[in-house]
């Protein structure tokens, strides 16, 4: 990325994206996850939307066989709708499509353990959760 491009991108995200995408609860969650991530790994240097995308799209062999990936139910495009195994529609995960996403700590506490267990076969780390949120906020 050239310095100009970087500046442009930064400017755009500051002027265009931020007003809709900042939310005190969500930012607080991210801050809390960052603090925890640092505790878990001293070398932690911030969340990455790209790592979040990779996590979202990765296929795991460690969870339930019928749900190898987040995309199994949520769909490949986070801006699109998903469908549960039982046929219920799932609203888009991208914050741009639903600004209220990730603004209820109780929902985050409920869904992260459930879905990480389901897909990865284990709890997610604070960094993984932060990456995921950062990716969804960027979408």
């Amino acid at each position, binding site marked *: 990325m050239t310095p100009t491009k970087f500046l442009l991108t930064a400017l755009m995200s500051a002027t265009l994206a931020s007003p809709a995408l900042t939310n005190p609860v969500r930012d607080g969650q991210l801050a809390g996850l960052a603090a925890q991530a640092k505790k878990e790994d001293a070398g932690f240097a911030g969340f990455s939307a790209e790592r979040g995308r990779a996590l979202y799209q990765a296929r795991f062999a460690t969870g*339930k066989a*019928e749900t190898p990936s987040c995309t199994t139910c949520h769909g490949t495009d986070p801006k699109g709708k998903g*469908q*549960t*195994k*039982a*046929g*219920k529609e799932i609203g888009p995960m991208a914050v741009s499509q639903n600004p209220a996403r990730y603004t209820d700590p109780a929902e985050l506490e*409920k869904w992260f*353990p*459930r*879905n990480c*267990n*389901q897909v990865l076969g284990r709890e997610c780390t604070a960094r993984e959760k932060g990456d995921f949120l950062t990716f969804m906020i960027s979408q």
Partner: protein
Amino acid sequence: MESPRTPLDSAAPTLTVWDLPVRLFHWLLVGAVATAMITGWLAPQWWMGAHLWSGYQVLALIGFRLIWGFWGSEYSRFASFAYGPGETFAHLRALVFLKSRHAIGHSPAGAAMIWALALLLAGLVASGLVMAGGEEKQGPLAGIASYQWGMAAKALHGPLALMLLGLIAGHVLGVLIESRLVRENLVLAMITGKKRLTLSPPENIRSARPLPTLLALAVMAVLGAGSLAALARLPPTGIYELAANPVYAKECGACHHAFHPSLLPASSWQGVMAGLADHFGEDASLPKAQAEAIAVWLIANAAERWDTEAANRFRTLDPAQPLRITATPYWTRKHRDLPKARFAQKAVGGPANCNACHRDAATGLYADQEIRLPKETNL
């Protein structure tokens, strides 16, 4: 001997035997019964609405015919075809030897058939009403008939309908045979109302009496509407107002159709709520207090509390999978004709998504006429 094949329009005098109301009654009844048979035996279940309406039509026609049997014109009156067993037997014996005597109105054998058809139709309407009320919780008897009554009526309704079909075949055959024997087109007679007058002209032919007929019809309509209104005020048996449960709707409804609690017995709900960490292969863990609150509500409103068709049926579980609604014997039987691909299509999203096809799934009633299969699409 005179030519026996005297055409209707020849010199032989004719008499209007079947008055217009009786002819209308006959052919409207043919239409209603045909609709009832097609919708009952051949059409998909969601034609139940048309089936019920054809039943109500038969009921209304029977009501009219009862009145017309007393104040209609001569040959519509019950008295004109109330033959004793002796006469009926004599006529039947004559028929065996392919002899018949020309009757102006109903012949004795024909009259016996009419009475049998009328009794069967009344039985079909009665059993249908009890069935609709008890099994489907619909119609005027929903507030009286229990599911058990409905099932008893169901055991009658089908065989009665088969018997009716047999009698209709006998009726048509009888008309055709008699038409040959007496050399008169009796089907045409039920359209034009006219028959050849071969017997000496009857004396004291009574004509229709419109005023008593209209009065009786008015009384019947008022009494009928009144009793229907009174019956409609009764709450359906075994159905309760179920207060909305927002926690259940949100937590359980997030992943799947929020099943009506009447669809499983209490023991199954208990099992479901105790195993949320592995909920049919999904991690559906909930905070303990929330899970307990939902369990209390589900168990309090489980199948045992309801008398709907679904609640009664789903109390019989699959012993191997007692927690799964879609494994119950009744569910499996009712859905076995649907190809797997139908369930897999996106608009359905799996067998657990009841409301993809059952528009009233949220009520737990699952009425036949509320079924609509989504358009068939590729995956």
